[in-house]
């Protein structure tokens, strides 16, 4: 124990004697460690952001889209493609027991005109359950009602972006807008949801599903069914329930493949975070390379240091230092140097990621495990790149070392 403290004292002393050089040497490690931690923090931050924004899309969301998933093997011909109608929505709505809400979704892209302004946006024809499924709230006016849906009323709820583009500062409620030349009354403005992985959530118009399907699209097929399970724990069971209800409605025989696909929110989250995980790994790997480069810097300086301190080594040998004493001295110096670099790098990384979090759009998540790993890695770099110079110092002949000029 006493030997260890002595060793550390000597190492610290020699590092402090060459402050500038020690700092420059550690800089490689500092930057390396800092880069690894910040990069991974940014990667994990964006992953968290993606997961959050998907969560913000709705509650316990389940989406049912027509057409078999590719999972079933060879895809089936277009003739067998069974599209959804309102009947499918009704079949689920009436018979399901585990669901909090079911809504048909009819999508259209259209030019929207108000006075002299116009804007191209997405029109979503939905049922009243949709507000609950997607957590929509309203800043001005009111939601449309089930009556409005039944009566195919030409009313619209507009997103904040649409409100800004068409109306500017005017209160849009009660105003008439034209969507594909059909006049709609604006009855409310949706509360801002912001930008998510799924795009700008405020650039849209919600209208009754019937109105959009019959009056705007003139079609009878809806695009998908949006569903919310009554509880997070029911999502699995709800999937099975929906599947059997739809199979029944579509009169599919047992053994026949589904002609629809059910997707849950979790699946979407998983798919999205997969990408950012790969990103995180890649960023971390690149930063790790810089840590190794930093280690080579340490080796370089330690080699210079050995040459420069040949006399010192000679003196130490002449007063009775063993080979191992010199080896441990230089090795501990390298390790202390890189660990100090590691600590400074960690502090810097923490500061930097707090800054990034507060002053930029980047989100960062600091992972204690990553910090620990970066720290131990910097120690390992010290051992690895410090050994060769230390060995070189230790095997010097005392006479040659003393004579060295």
């Amino acid at each position, binding site marked *: 124990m006493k030997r260890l403290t002595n060793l550390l004292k000597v190492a610290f002393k020699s590092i402090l*004697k060459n402050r500038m050089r020690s700092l420059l040497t550690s800089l490689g490690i500092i930057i390396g460690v800092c880069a690894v931690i910040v990069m991974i923090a940014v990667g994990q931050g964006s992953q968290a952001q993606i997961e959050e924004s998907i969560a913000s899309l709705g509650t316990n969301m389940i989406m049912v889209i027509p057409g078999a998933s590719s999972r079933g093997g060879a895809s089936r011909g277009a003739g067998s493609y069974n599209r959804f109608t309102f009947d499918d929505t009704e079949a689920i709505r009436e018979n399901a027991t585990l669901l909090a809400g079911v809504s048909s979704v009819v999508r259209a892209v259209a030019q929207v005109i108000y006075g002299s302004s116009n804007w191209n946006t997405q029109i979503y024809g939905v049922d009243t359950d949709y507000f609950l499924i997607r957590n929509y709230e309203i800043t001005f006016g009111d939601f449309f009602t089930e009556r409005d849906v039944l009566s195919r009323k030409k009313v619209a709820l507009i997103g904040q972006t649409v409100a800004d583009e068409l109306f500017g500062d005017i209160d849009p409620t009660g105003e008439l807008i034209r969507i594909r030349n059909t006049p709609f009354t604006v009855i409310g403005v949706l509360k801002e949801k912001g930008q998510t992985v799924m795009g700008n959530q405020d650039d849209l118009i919600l209208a009754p599903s019937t109105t959009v399907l019959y009056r705007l699209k003139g079609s009878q097929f809806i695009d998908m069914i949006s569903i919310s399970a009554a509880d997070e724990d029911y999502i699995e069971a709800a999937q099975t329930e929906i599947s059997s209800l739809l199979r029944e409605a579509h009169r599919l025989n047992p053994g026949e493949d589904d002609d629809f696909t059910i997707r849950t929110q979790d699946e979407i989250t998983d798919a999205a975070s997969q990408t950012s995980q790969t990103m995180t790994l890649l960023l971390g790997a690149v930063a790790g390379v810089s840590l190794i480069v930093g280690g080579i810097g340490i080796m370089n300086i330690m080699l210079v240091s050995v040459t420069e301190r040949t006399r010192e080594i000679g*003196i130490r040998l*002449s*007063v*009775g230092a063993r080979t191992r*004493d010199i080896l441990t001295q230089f090795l501990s110096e390298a390790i202390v140097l890189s660990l100090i670099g590691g600590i400074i790098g960690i502090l810097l990384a923490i500061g930097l990621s707090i800054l990034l979090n507060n002053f930029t759009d980047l989100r960062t998540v600091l992972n204690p495990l990553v910090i620990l790993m970066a720290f131990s890695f910097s120690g390992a770099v010290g051992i690895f790149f410090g050994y060769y110079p230390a060995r070189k110092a230790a095997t010097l002949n005392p006479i040659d070392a003393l004579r060295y000029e």
Partner: protein
Amino acid sequence: MGTINVHALRDVDLSVQTGEFLAVMGPSGSGKSTLMNLLGCLDQPSSGDYYLDGKYVNTMSADEYADIRNQKIGFVFQGFNLLPRTTALENVELPLFYDRQSRFKNPRESALKALDRVGLSDRLDHIPNQLSGGQQQRVAIARALVNEPAIIFADEPTGNLDSRTSMEIFSLFQELNDDGITIVMVTHERDFAFYAKRIIEMHDGQISQDIIISKRRNANVDLARYLRPETEEIVA
């Protein structure tokens, strides 16, 4: 290409008794330094026997050599060889840092004692750059003393010093020798060699002369004379 074997030392038969003060003289290339390195356990002879303090040294491993240097030997070099940017006290403590036998329970105290003995108690926290040549050599001597060695080797200890300081250093060596410490010293200057009790002359790797000095010169007296040459005239 082969290497040519040069015999730096040949047929050297030398025994140094406890309490001796031996001066080794000779022209450069005569093998003085090689002899010192061998005796000081910095180097191993290609053949021959060497007993130090009753121990047969030749067959020892590098680590044992290091321990011998640490426990039994003190070195004083021409170029002082102090650790730069390190205080006098820390320089003197250095050998005890490697004291594996734990002979010294309190290294700081031993170092203070050694520095006191060479008269540098007031320069403990000075680094070599802040000390004169003579003071640096005193620190080096204190370092050689601190492990209470069986023998001190001094390789031209006053080679870098002026006459006055040299005499001061020799005065110190004589004091230490009077206290019973064995000293082996290499020197170029005949005048200084007479401060020892015995002189050997080296030539071509062999001892050419071995003289016992019956009445050694006293460095302290020489120093006083050097400082006040006029008194000498009056006395004369």
